[in-house]
Each structure stands twice: as C-alpha cells, then as structure tokens.
C-alpha cells in the first residue's frame, strides 16, 4: 500500500472509530446518567416519573425501622426542610448510621407519598466526610431557610 493510501485508510479508520464511539457513548450515556436530587426537589415534584435517580441527605434520627429478623428496612432521608422515606431490602453499608449522610439510588414508587425504593445505599467513608452532593444541598436548604426567615 502506498503511503498516501495508507494515510487515507488511517484517517478513515479514525473517523469511523470516532463516529462509532460517539454514537455508542451517547446512547449508553442517555441510559446510564443518574441525576441527584435533594429531598426538597423530590417533594417539589422535580423528578420525572419512573426515572432512576439518586437522592441524598441525612438519615433522620430515630427513623430507621426494621422488621425483626428481616432484611427489609425503612428510613427517612432529610435535608431538614423535607423528607423522603426510603425502603431498602438488603445489607446496609458498614458506615450507615442515623444522623449521618447517605445517598440512595432507586426510584419513586408513589410520587405523592414520597416513598423511594432503593436498589443501592451508599454511606460516607469516614467521620468527617459527607457526600459532596448532600453537603451542598444541605447548605442550599439552610440558606433558603435563613433567607425566608429574614424576609418575614
């Protein structure tokens, strides 16, 4: 093959590869992007119905309820303005504790009752750490509350 044809082939291959890769990435992306919502967003009905997403906040103190001997567990995730009840069946992470930050992945089963069924629950990794999404959404709620108090 002459250098010219080889270069053409190289370019064609790259273009094909990039085009194929982009198509693939875009379609895989659409299906696998998970949005993060705070309990306030969920309560405000900002989450499109039937979509898998992540919700995060603090596990409300005293809200963890479990049937004795069963894996079914229910707890409330709060951003101190609004609550979402999370249902989960399975082993909770080591660092799951009341009063600590948590992120749950799953979907809403009934948008009115704010019951969220989680496929996965993630907890923080050390004492100081709070998931950044949770920290920010808590900060926002806090500021909103301060602002509303100031205006009244």
């Amino acid at each position, binding site marked *: *093959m*002459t*250098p010219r044809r*080889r270069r053409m*082939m*190289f370019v064609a*291959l*790259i273009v094909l*590869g*990039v085009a*194929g*890769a982009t198509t*693939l*990435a875009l379609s*895989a*992306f659409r*299906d*696998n*992007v*998970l*949005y*993060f919502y705070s309990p306030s967003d969920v309560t405000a009905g900002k989450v499109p119905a039937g979509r898998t997403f*992540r919700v995060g906040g603090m596990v409300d103190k005293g809200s963890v309820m*479990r049937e*004795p*001997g*069963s*894996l079914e567990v229910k707890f409330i995730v709060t951003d101190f303005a609004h609550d979402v009840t999370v249902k989960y*069946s*399975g*082993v*909770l992470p*080591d*660092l799951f504790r009341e009063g600590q930050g948590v992120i749950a992945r799953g979907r809403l089963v009934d948008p009115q009752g704010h019951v969220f069924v989680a496929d996965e629950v993630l907890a923080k*990794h*050390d*004492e100081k*750490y709070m*998931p*950044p*999404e949770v920290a*920010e959404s808590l900060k926002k709620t806090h500021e909103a509350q301060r602002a509303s108090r100031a205006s009244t």
Partner: protein
Amino acid sequence: MSVELGHFALILAFCLAVAQSVFGLVGAMPGKSYLQSGVRPAVAGQFVFVVLAFASLALAFQHNDFSVLYVASNSNSQLPAFYRFAAIWGAHEGSLLLWLLVLACWSIAVAAFTKNMPATFVSRVLGVLGLVSAGFALFILATSNPFARLLPAALDGRDLNPLLQDPALAIHPPMLYTGYVGFAVPFAFAVAALLEGKLDPVWARWVRPWTTVAWMFLTVGIALGSWWAYYELGWGGWWFWDPVENASFMPWLAGTALIHSLAVTEKRGLFKSWTLLLAIFAFSLSLVGTFLVRSGVLVSVHAFASDPSRGMFILAFLVICIGGSLSLYAWRAQRFGSTAGFAVVSRESFLLLNNVLLVAAASLILVGTLYPLFLDALHLGKISVGPPYFATVFMIPMLPLLFLLAVGMHAAWKRAKLESVKTKLLVMVGASIALAIIVPLVSYGSVSVLSVIGFTAGMWVLLSSLIEPVSRWRAGHKLSASVLGMSVAHLGLGVFVLGATVVKAYEIEKDLSLTPGQSVTLGNYEFKLNDTRNVVGPNYDAIEATVVVSRLGREVTVLHPQKRTYRVQTNPMTEAGIDPGWNRDVFVAMGEPLGQGAWSFRLQYKPLVRFIWIGAVIMALGGFIGVTDRRYRARVPRSADEAAREATVGA
C-alpha cells in the same frame, strides 16, 4: 533523625531536580555540552535526598512521633509496625512523597542504564524527568508538606483508616505508582525525541523495555487493587468503574496501546508520530489520574485531600506538562513522517486496529469519568455515570479487539499470508465455541449468548497464543524472549477474559438473614450459621460468625467472617470469610444484627473469579519475559549506533 532534616532534604532534592533539568536541557544545546556532565550527579543527589526525606518520615512513623501532624493523623501507637510503614502512603502528603521517590528511582535507573546512548539525547531525557520531579517536589513543599509539626503534640494518633490496614493494600500504591510514574520515562524519551527532531527504530528499541516494565507494574498494581476491593471493600465485586479505578485503568489502556505501537516503530519505522503522541497520552493520563484522585475532586475512599489550592496547583502542572508537550508535538510532529508501506492484511494493520480500539475505549472511559465533573463545575446539575455505561463502551471495542488479536498475533510484517495458520486458527475457533457451550453447560447448567461470546473470545485468544511457541518448540527452533513474552501476555489476557466472563455470567449472590442454627442453600452449596461470638484483635474488637459450608452434603470448609470495630476510628468494618479455590470462591460477609440473634449476611458463589487476577499476573509475567530479550541488552558501539541514526534520519 527529626523530620526537619527530612524537610530540608526535600528542599535540597527540589533544588537538585531544578539543576538536573537545567543541566540536562541547556546542556543539550549547541556549545553548552560541558553542562551535561552535571546531569548524572544531579540525578544521584536528588535520589539520595528524596530517599533521606522519605526515610525521615518513615522513622517518624516507626517512633510514633505524634508531634508530626501527618503521623498523628494517620498512625497510632497500637498500629502494628508493618502498617506504620504502609501508613506513610496512607494519605495525600505521604503518597505524593512516594510518587517523588518512585520518580527518583526511575530517574536513577535511566541514568544508570543509558550509558551506551548518545550523551546529548540522554541529557534531554534526564532534563525532562528533572522538570517533572521539580514540579512534584514543589507541589509537596508548597501545598502538602508531610513534615509539618503539630504543636502541642498529640497524645496518640488518629490511626490509619482501617480499610487500608491490609497487606494487599499496603503494597498496592507502591506498585501502582511505579507503573504510573514509570510512564514518565517514555514521556521523557518522546519529548527528547521531539526536541531533537529525529526518531529512528533504535529510539523505539530504547523505549520499549522502559514502557513494558512500567506497564507490568501498573498491571500488577491494578490487579492488587481489584483483589483488595474484592475481599475488603466491595462485598465481592472486583471492578466498579469507580472514577478512581478508571484513573488507573486509562493510563493502562494507553500504555498497552503504546507497547504495541512501539513494536511497529521498532520493527518497521512506522507510526512514529503516533507513538510519540501515545507516550505523551499515557503519562498525561497518569497525571490526570493523580489529579483526579488527589485533589479531592473525586470523593471516594481514595480521595484524601480536599484543598482547592492543591487542585489548582495540579491543574497548572497538568496544563504545563500536557499543554507543553502537545504544543511541542504539534510543532515538530510533521518531521516524523515515514515512507514504508504495508498491505491491508499485515501485522501493521492489526496493530493499527489494536491502537484504534484501545484508544477509543480509553477515550470513552475518560468522557464518562470527566463529564460529571464538568457539569458540576459549570453548575449544570449533579449527575453520576453508572457502571453500565462503562461496561458497554468498554465491551464494544474490546470484543472485536480480542477476535482480531487471535488472528493478528500470527500475521507477518508488511504483507501477511495467513494460509499457514488458517487451519489451526479455524480448528481453534471451533474448539473454543464447542468449549464455550459444553463447559458452562456441564459446570453451571446454562448458557447465554454473551457468555458464549466471552468464553469463545477468551478461549480462542488463549489457544491461539500457544500456536507460535508450541510450533517453534516442536520444530526445534529457538524461541526468542520477545515472542515468548508476547505469547505469555496474550495467554494471560485469555485467562482474564475467561474469568471475567464466567464470574459475570454464573455468579450467585444473595442477601439474607440467618439466626444461629439456621441453614440456607445457594446453588449447590449449603451454608449453616453455627454461632456468633466476640473476638479481640490487636487494635480492633470484632464479632465473628462461624459458618459451615457444605456441598452436596459434604462439608467443604468453615468460614469466619467478622464485623470489626477498630478502637481508634470506631468505624465498623466487614471482614469477609472467603474459601478460595482455583475454580470458585465461596464468599460470606456479615451485614448487621437484625435483632433476636439474627444477622444479615451476603453469601456469594464466584466461579473462576481467581482467573481474573491470575490472568493479570500472567500478563505482567509476559511483559517481564519480553523485557529480558537479548536485543535490549546488546551494546551498540557508539560510532555504529550514531551511523545508524544518521542513516535513518532522512527516511
């Protein structure tokens, strides 16, 4: 030795790194060659002082010097001595010092093993390494000083993160860093070639062993990380497409592409500018990886720092390193044309496809890893990209790669006639398909389309990598280390693919609740919880369960999973009970108490899971064999070498 001496040694190391880059780069200019004699002493001096700095920190850890902030934050008087050493790289500051130490080791190795190369060229290579070294030393001194004092001193330390108190994880960072940082060497060679404006097959022969050794360490490092995550962190998963894992995997993919493209550059003098670009990419991705993991952009168990000034520094460093080298590339790359041709069916074409597919996979992973960060930085919402994205965009380029690989290994340079191996390859693909259907049916009782494709790919790669060594051996020919290394590495890949396919298709996982005396079945296995009791470890307390595992009525093993509470950090930790086997693992992890004596458990059956790490180790072994090839050690007489270089410059 007090840590102030270590701090001082680090400052001296920084100065010597600057000297090294000045001597190296200025010394390579016309009329300044008298400066070159200063390069190697500067490398040696820098090495000595970095070792001293590291040693002083190590001593502070061994002597429990809790007046050092870093020691107080990451160690404890109860911590076993081995982990007091591993704790050096248990957090941000120390792991950067380790990074620098590894770079100093690579630099001194380059200085030692390049005596037979042209002096000016080596001077440039060491100069570039000096720049990288100076950048990192400055980073440590300016933003992440591990030698800072804590006054008044702490009574005791806050302890090493319990997750990191594990033998595999203790050696995981040094391995990974040796690989990461090792890509600085091909990077420096590439930048030196760009500065020099010439590149010939001899250059590729110089770079290949360095690249392969770095790749080898990276392979082992990633495998260790995966193994650790499997038994310690992940509740039995071995790869999560976590951004931090991606950060180490992208340089690996680029490095793998580089190894293959270097082969073409060495043997045929082709793909020169592409090879240079890949060398830049591989190291850039290593730097991006460091940035991702260390700047706190990613919050995961690996991300210790969350200080924006560090992030800004690394970002600036990245811009200078990557931007600088890419600009240099843009300016000089057209000098590296080549005129040789090759047929459509030839080893060159196969390796070209290999590169396109590997780079496509790496780019798609990069997009998925960085996209959420960009969105977040632009305040467009917080998203995360789920593992299925990565699995999809990785599998789609990799499957054709595997099938092409089985054939491509046997293609000749220039123009390949595959007639001689055609029959063998066809027989093997038939055998692979048959095995892919029969073995899972017999062992696991079912087959699926994906499992057959994956199994066939793995099996075919494995078998076809044996053709060359076996036929040469039977014909009584000598087998060069290069060919053997290539075959072994590809065999390892086949083993890995088999393991990954089978574990994905046939693993069984179940979360359930067990009370003492209760038993449950999973596949052919029966698990019986005998009791739970308290045990006391050196620096933790634990609740330990006794689970008897039997298969078809016969007792296989007794497992003792634990739920540990480390005394200092008081976080609970799961220590899984694993019964390893060559063909399957049985995995029991304790969840939490459910009341009335019941505990939640995660039980898993993992067929062929060991093949994943064994495959990776075989790949690394292949790299090691390849590096021992004689031609890398052949001493080219200086004059003949120069003549060869001159002869190929115009080409």
